[in-house]
Each structure stands twice: as structure tokens, then as C-alpha cells.
């Protein structure tokens, strides 16, 4: 008998050896991962926006204010920045970093990620838990605001590094089974959502600022790329030529770059397809259908297509589809 001729019955049982996962655990796994990814985006956005101010000084105060409000808009925080002393920038930065009432502040994202992790400590690795718990306590520490004052840059970098370390640990210390697949799905859905909102918001702000001279425009476009952790990837591709359409095409359509929307959609699609195959080998679920179609669309898209009805409209449509996919995941897997 050749090694390949395994009786069907055994193949079947091997296929089903995958350990079932509690629906509540899958839910917590998913949200833990989304909030870790979100925390990283919030930290990077705040860092880049603060640095932008240093770069361009007081050259365009109105634009600066728009950039800060843009941060709130990207994170779907429509509330007006809190009253108080200090510039709009300082107030918004504080609000988005330490305010526990604000559900999208850094501290809220990390707290929620950790709260979810605490509910599933027995199924994540000790390394993942310890890393996230340490990050949480460093933000909750009494001296955290002082560290923030001392070096905002270091402070945000620490959160970004913490988030990335967590994702690395997730890859390296967790079996790549259903648990891991849910973290991947969540991470990439969150990345698609935030990245598309960054591009949309920044595009709108900069389009309305035609008065800017070229040098200054370039700095603003570079900031967009930095907000998406993509400046180096873009430079290698386009040799530093800061053309708005190219920046947008890169962020949306680039095939191999892990921060691009196309890449993230591909990964999210693979994750949901693998989950579905394990749970229900014979069907396709609604979230998989949405992500599969989107994946095909992006894979075969001409760059011109994303500008056909205006980039913001294209991105809004994309966000709606991602929202629907996320809802479908909830329905299929968490609400048994």
C-alpha cells in the first residue's frame, strides 16, 4: 500500500480532529485582535500628526486644525474636542490618548483588548497575555502622563511596538488553528477599515487645500503614507515621487505590501475561508462571499477604476462592504 492510499474513513476523522472552539472565545479572540490593531493605528496617527506640526510649523494653521479634526473623523469619534486650555492639537492628542470615556482612545483600545484577553487567557499563549498585560499596566501607570509629557514620540512608539510585538507573538506562539485565524481576520478587517478612512479623510482635506505650495503638499502626502506605515514601501516603488494618485493607488492596490488594502483584503479572505472550511467544509458563508468578491475586484482592478466616481466614494463603498462582512462574521460564528 502506498502512503497516499489512506482509507477514506481515516481521512475523514483526521479532517475533523480540529478542536472545536467556544463561540464566546472566538468572539473575544476577534475583538482582542481588533483592539490591538486599532491601538497601533491610533498611536501612529497621533504620532504622525504631532510630527507634522513640527515639520510645517505655523505655516497653515487652518490646515493643522483640519488635520487634528481629521484624526477624530478617522477614528469615528465625532464628538467635539474637549474644552480646556492649550491648542486644539494638544487637547485632541490628550483626548485620544488618555480619556477613558472616549471608546477609541489609546487607553480604551488597550484596556478593551486586555479585557478580552483576560477572558480567554486559557486559550492564548502566556507570552501574548504577558505582553498585552504589561502594555496595559504601562499605560495605566501613575507616571504615564509624565512620560507622555517628557517624550510624546517615545510614548506612542512604545504602544506601536507593543502592538506589533503582540502580533508577532501571536504568530510565533499560537498554533495556526481557528484561534489564530480569528485574530488574523480581525486584524486585517481593522486595518482595511482604518486605512481606507485615513486615505479618504486626508484626500478630502488636501483636495480642499489647493493653495498649498508644492513643497508643503509633499510633506502632507508623506504624512499620509507615514500614517499608514507605508512611506518606505512607497519610496522603493515610486522613488519618492509624491503624486496624490500614486499614493492612493499604492495604498489601495499594491499587491505585496502588508499595509495596503488589497493585501489586507486578501489575507482576511484567506482567514475566513480557512475558518469556514474547518467549521463547515461544504458551504460558503456570507462574510467569505463579500470578502472573496472584494478580493477579486481589487486583484483585477485598473488604477483608474478607483478614481472613476471619485476616490472618497470608492472608499466609502469599500468600508460599507467591510462593515457587512464583519456583521456576517458575528452572525455566523459568535451568536450560536
Amino acid at each position, binding site marked *: 500500500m502506498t502512503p497516499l492510499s489512506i482509507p477514506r474513513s481515516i481521512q475523514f476523522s483526521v479532517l475533523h480532529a480540529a478542536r472545536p472552539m*467556544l463561540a*464566546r*472565545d472566538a468572539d473575544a479572540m476577534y475583538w482582542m485582535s481588533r483592539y490591538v490593531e486599532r491601538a497601533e493605528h491610533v498611536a501612529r496617527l497621533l504620532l504622525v500628526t504631532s510630527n507634522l506640526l513640527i515639520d510645517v510649523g505655523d505655516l497653515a494653521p487652518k490646515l493643522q486644525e483640519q488635520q487634528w479634526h481629521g484624526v477624530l473623523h478617522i477614528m469615528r469619534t465625532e464628538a467635539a474636542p474637549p474644552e480646556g486650555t492649550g491648542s486644539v492639537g494638544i487637547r485632541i492628542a490628550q483626548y485620544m490618548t488618555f480619556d477613558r470615556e472616549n471608546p477609541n482612545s489609546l487607553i480604551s483600545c488597550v484596556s478593551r483588548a486586555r479585557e478580552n484577553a483576560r477572558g*480567554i*487567557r486559557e486559550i492564548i499563549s502566556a507570552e501574548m497575555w504577558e505582553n498585552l*498585560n504589561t502594555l496595559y*499596566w504601562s499605560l495605566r501607570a501613575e507616571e504615564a502622563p509624565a512620560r507622555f509629557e517628557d517624550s510624546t514620540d517615545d510614548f506612542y512608539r512604545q504602544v506601536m511596538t507593543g502592538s506589533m510585538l503582540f502580533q508577532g507573538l501571536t504568530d510565533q506562539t499560537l498554533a495556526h488553528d481557528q484561534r489564530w485565524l480569528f485574530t488574523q481576520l480581525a486584524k486585517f478587517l481593522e486595518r482595511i477599515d482604518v486605512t481606507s478612512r485615513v486615505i479618504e479623510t486626508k484626500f478630502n482635506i488636501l483636495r480642499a487645500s489647493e493653495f498649498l505650495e508644492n513643497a508643503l503638499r509633499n510633506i502632507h502626502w508623506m504624512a499620509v503614507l507615514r500614517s499608514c506605515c507605508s512611506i518606505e514601501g512607497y519610496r522603493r516603488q515610486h522613488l519618492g515621487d509624491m503624486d496624490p494618485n500614486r499614493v492612493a493607488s499604492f495604498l489601495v492596490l499594491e499587491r505585496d505590501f502588508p499595509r495596503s488594502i488589497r493585501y489586507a483584503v486578501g489575507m482576511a479572505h484567506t482567514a475566513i475561508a480557512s475558518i469556514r472550511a*474547518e467549521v463547515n467544509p461544504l458551504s460558503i458563508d456570507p462574510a467569505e462571499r463579500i470578502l472573496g468578491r472584494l478580493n477579486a475586484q481589487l486583484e483585477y482592478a485598473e488604477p483608474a477604476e478607483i478614481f472613476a466616481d471619485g476616490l472618497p466614494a470608492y472608499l466609502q463603498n469599500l468600508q460599507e462592504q467591510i462593515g457587512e462582512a464583519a456583521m456576517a462574521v458575528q452572525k455566523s460564528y459568535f451568536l450560536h
Partner: protein
Amino acid sequence: MFEQYEADGLFDEMFAEPNKPRAHYEAVVARLKALGPSAVARRVRMADLTFRNQGITFTVYSDQRGVEKIFPFDMVPRIIPADEWEMIERGLVQRITALNLFCQDIYHEQRILRERIIPPDLIYGAKMFRREMFHVNVPRNIYIHICGTDLIRDKQGRYLVLEDNGRTPSGVSYVLENRGVMKRVFPTMFSAYKVRAIEDYPHNLLQCLKHVAPKRADEPTIVVLTPGTYNSAYFEHSFLARQMGVELVEGQDLVVDNSFVYMRTTAGLRRVDVIYRRVDDDFLDPLCFRSDSCLGVAGLMNAYRCGNLALANAVGTGVADDKAVYAYVPDMIKFYLGQDAILPNVPTYICARDDDRKYVLENLDKLVVKSTNESGGYGMLMGHQASREERATFAERIAADPRNYIAQPVVELSQHPSLIDDRFEGRRIDLRPYILYGEKVIVMPGGLTRVALRKGSLVVNSSQGGGSKDTWVLEAKDETVAAPKSSKEVTVST
């Protein structure tokens, strides 16, 4: 560090007389002196940080919404020589055996009541007596699979049983974590000793749970049932599930269909065979017990009665750890096993008895009064420390509901050095060993040594400002390894 250390007329675990450590403590004392206060303090900070970062915490309810706290860790290990432990172990095996026979008897023939060893009204009046369990056969006739029996030592150093915890005893996770942290922070302290390993506890627990699984062809599915993340012992529930590699479920994850229990997974329902439940009887099944419970599973008891499910511990074991029933455990041992209790009880006055009650009410200032069903140090009166008003309130409560109270003379618990700031002071301790009743009875060597960190306090519960220390049970051979020369110690420490 030990210069001002005083025994205060108590039994001191470490010092036989001032500045003269008992043989089995010599090496630890030498090591601590060699390290010196600042090195010890630095390592304690390391330990605290480890506890925090690893989230080894418990939740305190009195604070608003429950706040996570680190269980204070006291770095001076408690050491139990092999011969002492051998006696304790025999006593505990005897006790859990008798308690299980008692539960089996109470829920079936009730011989112990019919032969007037225990007054029936004491059992029927016990809050935790479960009529629902009458004539229910539990898997392999085991009721108390996991028991935590609290031991104390009196002024003469005799070990006494203070109470049995036969429902859902907690604390074992801290025992394992304390050992882990101790090995990391003070590795050299172990070198002079042969300390018995405790790390196989989760494995033994899993075997114990497998032992009671309903007999079916396939591997049983075992889960740990927790009330949720806001429960004070949530860390432990999660810890044990992780260590055993089984799912940690909440009531909402389970569903009963056709008298089988299932858990809700991403792929639909999966059958569950054994539940290590950390939810009290009262909350287990709203159809059977408290109907307002959201922590349990409707229909669970039915599946249990049908024999489709094993629960650890069984339902109704609370009748065995009722504090009034406790007074009869030596009689149970005599009755079921024909033996004398190896570990004596603390003398106990049962307020339901007229003579006892009269004595208790007249001597409230000398006694400790306990509610028969509370745990965690709640519902207690320390008569000698209480105010006149507090005593009067308790007198009224006892008169109104005598069945609910017992009283005991104040036992001056033994003391052990604890690190307080940068020096050592005596603090009262107790010991909770963990006993597993599966295919055989396994006593974990050691257990949770709890410390009353408040000076002069006799209450060791974590909810009342208690801490804990690592507990070393020594191997029978070479237990008194001579302390290394301190000069050699210094070179090791730098």
C-alpha cells in the same frame, strides 16, 4: 534583619528560641542574612512585578465594580519537615475518605442519623443540604473530588483542623504561581533543600476528573465552569483550564438538550462529559435551585441525575463543610472507618445545643463566633477584639438563629517571619493543603500558607488583607541538610 524579632509567646515556625532557628530553617536564615536587606528588597520588587505583569490577581468585591489586586506574596518560605508532613498527609486522607462516606450515607441510607451519631435536625437544618440529591447515584460514589482543608497550629505547635472546604476550595493556583516566582527570584534558596515538587497538580486534577467521566467510547470532554471574569477567583479558573488544556466555559456557553449537556462552539454544539464547576450549587441550575441565576445552565441537574454528566465537586457537598457538622467529623471518622482522628478539631460549641449556646452567650468576649455557612472570613466575630456593641449584635443574631452559629475558643495561631518593609516580623499563618480524590487519594505536598499581614491579626483570608507564602515540604531523606557556610553564600549572592 532578625535582630528585633520576637516570638511574643506564640509558637514560632522558624525560631525555637530567640536567634536560634530550628534545624530545617537554618539554611534559609543563613541565605537571607547573606543576601542582606537591599538585595532581598530588590528581589521582592522583581516578584511583585512578575505577579502584576502575569496578571496573577484576585478581585475584591467591596471596592466598586471589583478591582483586580495582587495577592500579596511574602517571600520567606514556610518549611514543613518530612515527618510532620507524613502525619498531616495521613490525617487528610483519613478525613476526605470519611467525608465522602458521610456524603454518600447522608444522601442514601442515613445510617449515621439513624444510629444517632449526628442529630438529624442538624443535617436537615443545614443550608447546604440538598434534598434534590437524595438517592441520586453520583459517578463512582465520589462527592468531594477536591478538598481544601484548613490547618492551624496552636501554642504547642499541634496541627489542628480549622475547617474543611468541600465545595469549591480556591487558592491552588497561587500555590503553583508562588513556587514559580520563588524559583525565579530566589533560586539559590532551594539549593540546600530537597523540596517536594507540586507542579503535577493540574495533571492529577485532570486524571481525577477523567476518573469520574461517564463511560463512553471516546475521550471525555472536560471543561471548567466559571461564573466569569468578575469572579474573585477568575484568575484561578482560567489558570486551571489552561494548565489542564481544557475549555473554560461560562453558563451562557452551555446548553442542555435531551438530558445531555453541550457547549456552543463556532461549529455548533459539542457534548460535555465532565464539568469542574467553580459555581456554587445555588447558581448551577435555575430550574432546580435559584431561579434568578444567570451563571448556571437550565436543565443541568437533570443531565446530572441521568448520569450523562459528572460534576466535581458533586452537588450537596456543602452539608459536609457546614461549620456545625464539622464538629462531628471526628465522630464520622470513628463511625465509618473505626479509627481515631489523626488531626484533631478545634473545640467547637454548637449554638443549636442549649448548653453550648448558654456558654457561648456568657463568654462572647473569649470566643470566635462563626456563621456556619460563610467563608472568606465574612460573618465572623472575634470576641476578644470586638466592641461591646458588636458583641451585643452577635448575641441577638445567635439567639434569633442558633443553628446558623458556632463558636470556638481563640486559637493563638503559630507565627512565621514575614518581610515587613526591610526587616522580619512575626505574622500569624495557617495552611490549606489540597486533596484530590480520584482513583486514589493524592495530597499535594504543601499547600497554600496564608499570612495575616496585619500586625496581631488572626484573619488570614485574602479578602481581609491576607497574603501567602511558598510552602516547602521536604523529602524524607536528607531533610536536614546542614546550612552552607555563610562565607560561601556571600560569593554565590554577588
